[in-house]
């Protein structure tokens, strides 16, 4: 029971990370017409953050066991 509460709280933490990375002025840092390896920085950033959130959630949930 305690483990599942901890997992839920970690997930809320991940939600907050996503909120800060995608919906705060942090976003504007990457919202510019620059490229990285031929790919616009904004695309790399958005999909990178997205992947990060998925991976964090997967680790949090699957590592917590049944």
């Amino acid at each position, binding site marked *: 029971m305690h483990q*599942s509460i901890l*997992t*839920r709280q970690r*997930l*809320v933490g*991940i*939600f907050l990370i*996503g*909120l800060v990375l*995608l*919906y705060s002025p942090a*976003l*504007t840092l*990457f*919202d*510019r*017409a620059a*490229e990285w*390896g*031929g*790919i*616009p*920085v*904004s*695309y790399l950033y*958005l*999909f990178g953050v*997205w*992947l990060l*959130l*998925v*991976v964090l*959630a*997967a680790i949090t*949930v*699957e590592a*917590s066991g*049944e």
Partner: protein
Amino acid sequence: MLSTKLLVLYSLLYLGLLFAIAYWADKRADQQRSVISRPTIYALSLGVYCTAWTFYGSVGRAAATGVGFLPIYLGPTLIAALWGTLLLKMVRISKTQRITSIADFIASRYGKSQLLGGIVTVIAVLGVVPYIALQLKAISRSFTILQSYPDVELAGTVEAIPILQDTALYVALLLAAFTILFGARHLDASERHEGMVAAIAFESIVKLIAFLAVGIFATFYLHNGFGDLFDKAELAGFLNPMIADDAGDYGNWYSLTILAALAVMMLPRQFQVAVVENSSEHHLRRAVWMFPLYLLLINIFVIPIALAGQLTFAGTSVDADTFVLTLPMAHDQGGLSLLAFIGGLSAATGMVIVETIALSTMVCNDLVMPGLLRRWKRVPPEADLSQLLLRIRRGAIIVILLLGYLYFHFAGEAYALVSIGLISFSAVAQFAPAMLIGLYWRGGTHAGALAGLVSGFGVWIYTLLLPSFAKSGWLPAGFLDHGPFGIELLRPQELFGLAGMNEITHCLFWSMLFNIGAYLFFSLRRAPNVHETTQATLFVDVLKHERPMGIGLWRGKAEIKELFGLAERFLGAESAHRSFRQYAARRKVQDIGGLPADAETVHFAETLLAGAIGSASARVMVASVTAEEALGLDEVLHILDEASQIRAYSRELEQKSRELKAASRELKAANEQLKEIDRVKDDFMSSVTHELRTPLASIRAFSEILYDDPKVELEQRRRFLGIVVSETKRLSRLVNQVLDLAKIESGHADWRSEHVDVAELITEAAELTEQLCHDRGARVICELPGRPCVVNVDRDRLMQVVVNLLSNAVKFAPQDEGIIRIRLLEGAGVCRVSVSDNGPGIPLAEQPYIFEKFHQGSGGSEKPVGTGLGLPISREIVEHLDGRIWVDSSPQIGATFTFELPVKGDSDQRVRETDVEKSPDSG
């Protein structure tokens, strides 16, 4: 070539395959070998979120706004992280109360209100039917486009086609038939459709593969990877890497995210797959990351396809919404085009099937049922209503799909259809305040929820739906530009002069302001009543209880026959029998007739019915066959959690006060002990001073005699001085022993540890006391074993003990006839030494005190001969060496002092009482 016949054949084959999967999954479920019991299947079924609007429309939006389409998927990704509590709550509530739709959920939360359920249903139908129309349009249009393969030409406008020749009509009818097969073949009390879920999960895989295939084709076949494609697009001026919109504003970015995050939980189809069809709470864990991963994968190639399409079709009028299909066609990829078509078909059919099933449940339970219940008050219903229920659902499915078709037919290419995705999202987002606030706040009332929903929905109609009609030419354009009746302040998309926002953000702001505002205002006007409080507690506290609550919340008279009859009427005889038999088995009752008609049974019957006709109608029906006594608010509160919380709290208080009492008892005991120790110390001090005074007195007396009278005879003088010397010796011995005892007791004594042979030590002690024995004429007999007996002790201290016991024995032995026996025994891990004398013995009454300080053996001589500290010191030493010492004595026969020490190697092992019995020796 792809002929029409071939396309129809492929489409039918695909739908047939879907149905085969659903049929197989249903069969497996009947055999208790469910295929959807896997968390991955659950996560995939949530992919029904991605409709044809995603499959085709995302590319269109990306072509127009760059990454502007992403919030539609980032919102769900973020909110998914909160599903661990949010969705878990919804799932658990729905399982315990057998809630089968979002209308039922909201109605249930605010006291099982039929009115609320009806309003939610109306909003859902009005908001979602155009969205179904969009799916029909996507299917029909992709069909038309692919028919002309390999020519890419724009599909003609559909309005020109007479209804009966319109593929979309047949698509709608075909889908209605399939939806009935998937969702309304038979009546299921819990409204779960395992076959449908399996088919939907399969569709999620198909559309993902199709989209990825087109994306890989566009990126790596038409161009040399992402970098190459982006370079070319930038040169051609198609690349738009900015996240902010053209005005540099993020308003859209935020509002679309909020909207999508709400919609992914409030859309009827999402509620259906995520909550109603959930087969295990554990599945949520997988969905928390796998659903966002699915969204991520299906979005990776949206921008590349949009850019590749713009590059390919530069200068033509090909609609970006069709790129997924037309891009492979333009490059003569027949197979890939067909795959793209099937992908789009799967996205559209998945949405239509689930959405229609969800809506038909709502229409049946929350719109038709209340009407029927009212009619049945006047006209008694027929016996078996289960077939009627099925007919209502099937009818609702057909009507909803035909409504969708009609909207498509009349709206066609109009703005009102093209932009319906977000408009639809905005409509269902109106459920969010009543739903989500109601999950965490007990204060929300029926009036609040009603006011919030109605005002939010009203604002939605005024700021989004009517303007979309105006933009489609169905309303005068002046309505948009100058407001109704020319009142500029009421312009629907610049309400109260609020300008500079896009229409979606504008609607989201105003509708949520009115919705939440009205919800809070009307909720706070009065306290929740009994029904609202009951349901609020059951919803808000659902995670706090392992067992479902709410069973004790009914009081009245009921007949089991009536309840069973009710269930039989709505569920059919067979299904009702099965459910009641299972329940009877749970209650450990032989047959259904023997069930007690108590609160638990009434609760069971009502929940069972709720699965079939919705909670609000179930409540009305059960109330019609039972005589319920109204519970007061206080009683409900008492039964419910708050009372139990108070009980838990008072239990905690009791526990605390018990602990306090125990602690104070311990403190008292400790205090008593301290007082006792203090008293013992005082006694000891007075004993010591008393003992010191006696020899001092005689020393002083004799010294004074000698001092005062110089003429004392020599003989006399010598005797007196002898007494003074011996009393001085006794005095110093006493002082030494007091110091010694204090040292041992306080733990400050130095203890050496060495191997000592006790037999040898006894021999030596006997030699040391030889003179003393000789003086008294006593005989010492040593009975020692032949072999050494080694213990690990401080030799000097042990010697002190043995000498002490020996000299005591000598002291009390009769003059010239004394026999002192020293025995050494070894065995059972201990070494036992006993010293016996044949003196007067110790009276039984004195034996317990013999080892106390300053206790003087009174037997024999009239004047005490020792200091009274020898035995206490001996006991301290023996006990310090992990041994024990005791006395056995029979008056007139003698006394035996015995001590035991653990032998070497067993020094850490305590002497066990059972191993060594007290010596019966006495001699």
